[in-house]
């Protein structure tokens, strides 16, 4: 097995371990946010980073051309953003909800496999930057989707008077609603930057990848507007953040097969 596959497999197992550890702690009611809970996620992140480094060496560019590579890159970005925003929003349980998504994405990537791909001409740094920023934006949307799930779970527990283990661990719904709004905003700013770079490349809507990126941008611009103007309830906007992520996810297939 090549080194990159070993690294990714180890990273996936680390995230799966984080899921199992968290579920056991939550089930027994002894969940407490601390460094111990973060260890498997941190180990997974280190292994992801090592994978991306060696994969980059292998293909001679930023590894973002195949679906498997993109899934790993988004998974890496999701964890990076989790470390950046999780503590800021006091969303200690976000890691628990993040780990399953990353485990699934990386499992798909492992099943797909990693093929070598040829470098087409000289590498354009702006193109690489555009792609990287766009994928980090998608990671912010993924995190907004996960936070949306947390909101919907907590909202349901409150509405149905199910005051139990998970209820005490989840943050207040108002805080979750604000986190969704900020994550969608962050993703939108990053995607705008990525699309702005595409103008510098003189190809703003030159191919299906960019067209789809613009559609994703428009969707999240609408969601962001609805949240900003409080046009609809936080529950509905949480649903939008969850369901809305389907579009960027579909676009990954289009991007990789265009």
């Amino acid at each position, binding site marked *: 097995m090549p080194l990159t596959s070993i690294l990714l497999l180890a990273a996936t197992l680390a995230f799966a371990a984080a899921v199992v550890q968290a579920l056991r702690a939550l089930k027994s*009611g*002894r969940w407490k946010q601390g460094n111990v809970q973060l260890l498997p996620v941190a180990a997974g992140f280190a292994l992801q980073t090592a994978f991306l480094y060696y994969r980059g060496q292998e293909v001679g560019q930023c590894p973002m051309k195949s679906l498997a590579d993109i899934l790993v890159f988004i998974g890496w970005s999701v964890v990076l953003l989790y470390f950046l925003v999780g503590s800021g929003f006091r969303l200690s349980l976000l890691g628990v909800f993040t780990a399953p998504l990353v485990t699934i994405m990386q499992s798909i990537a492992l099943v797909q496999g990693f093929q070598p791909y040829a470098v087409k001409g000289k590498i354009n740094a702006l193109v690489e930057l555009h792609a990287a920023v766009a994928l980090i934006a998608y990671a912010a949307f993924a995190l907004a989707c996960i936070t949306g799930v947390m909101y919907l779970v907590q909202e349901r527990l409150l*509405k149905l*008077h199910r*005051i*139990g283990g998970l209820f005490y661990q989840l943050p*207040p*719904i108002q805080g979750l609603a604000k986190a969704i709004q900020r994550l969608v905003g962050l993703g939108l700013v990053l995607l705008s930057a990525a699309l702005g770079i595409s103008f510098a490349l003189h190809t703003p809507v030159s191919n299906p990848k960019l067209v789809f990126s613009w559609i994703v941008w428009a969707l999240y611009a609408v969601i962001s507007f609805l949240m900003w103007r*409080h046009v609809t309830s936080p529950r509905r906007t949480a649903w939008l953040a969850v369901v809305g992520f389907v579009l960027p996810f579909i676009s990954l297939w289009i991007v990789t097969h265009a």
Partner: protein
Amino acid sequence: MPDPADNNIRATGTLVCVGLNYKTTPVEVRERLAFPEAVVPQAVKNIRELPGFGESVVLSTCNRVELYASHELPEAPQSHDALRDYLVRHFQLQPEHAEAMVLYQLDAAEAARHLFRVVSGLDSMVLGETEIFGQVKAAYKTALDHGTTGKTLNKLFQQAFTVGKRVRNDTMIQRGSTSVGSVAVDLAEKVHDLKECRVMLVGAGEMSRTCAQSLLSRGAKSIIVSNRSYDKAVELAEEMKGRAMKFDEWEHALHEVDVIISSTSAPHFVIKPEQIEQTMRKRRWDPLLIIDIAVPRDVDPAVNAIEGVYLYDIDALQAIADDGRRERERQLVLCERIIEEQLAKFGFVGA
């Protein structure tokens, strides 16, 4: 807290605990036997100076008065009598009151087990409550600062704090809420950031006052009190450093608050879906927690169906508090096991 090792070690004696609590003694007697904070330093010194005694700690809270000491008397009952006589003298009890005073008298392992249970919140009125841990720490610190502890009590209390922490960390004895007031706080905390939380009392009953006080003590931002009797509203608002509102005005302020606690004696619904729908539009869907303590209910149950509104009536609150109590009682076996393990580990009982 100073290192007990630095303290002058006076004695290694037999451990004794004499005391009374809410289980043995009614409040009207307990309040007469409580040591005011300022008196405790002298009390610990006086006990230590009793013939045959070497160390002392006095724990005096609203629910218990306990004297922990070490002695070198040949018989345990002598130490019990000496501490009992001290209480009678200190509080200048009449013979009939002294006769009626029911004390528990515990020696060695029994005294250690009792302290471990007390520190862990297992002997508290509200099972698993945490305040007692701080109260025991403060009592020990007072004695330590006044030089009335030595090898026996220093070791015992340090062990007790270790056991208390272990019980809290390794079990779920603290989990859940066991009273209507604490359930209200838990719910408010899961809807809003409490520091930003504005509360409105509609009706000024005793239970709503308790809930509001719980919320304020945990950091709620402000309170509005509205009552049919405006004077009563003003009185309660002043007590809680809030704002009073005439009863015909509260509807107009609904959108300004995040938690409504309703407890009027109205025979019909006071808060109706159409009012709350309008309120939610004004609040721009900011979530609203409504706690209906009144019987008959003040709030139409249909309100709970409105987006962003979370309605809890007295039965719902009571059911959550009962669940919390049951959950804690289930944890009791586990807590007692930890205490027995620790008693064996520290050599109080055979392993």
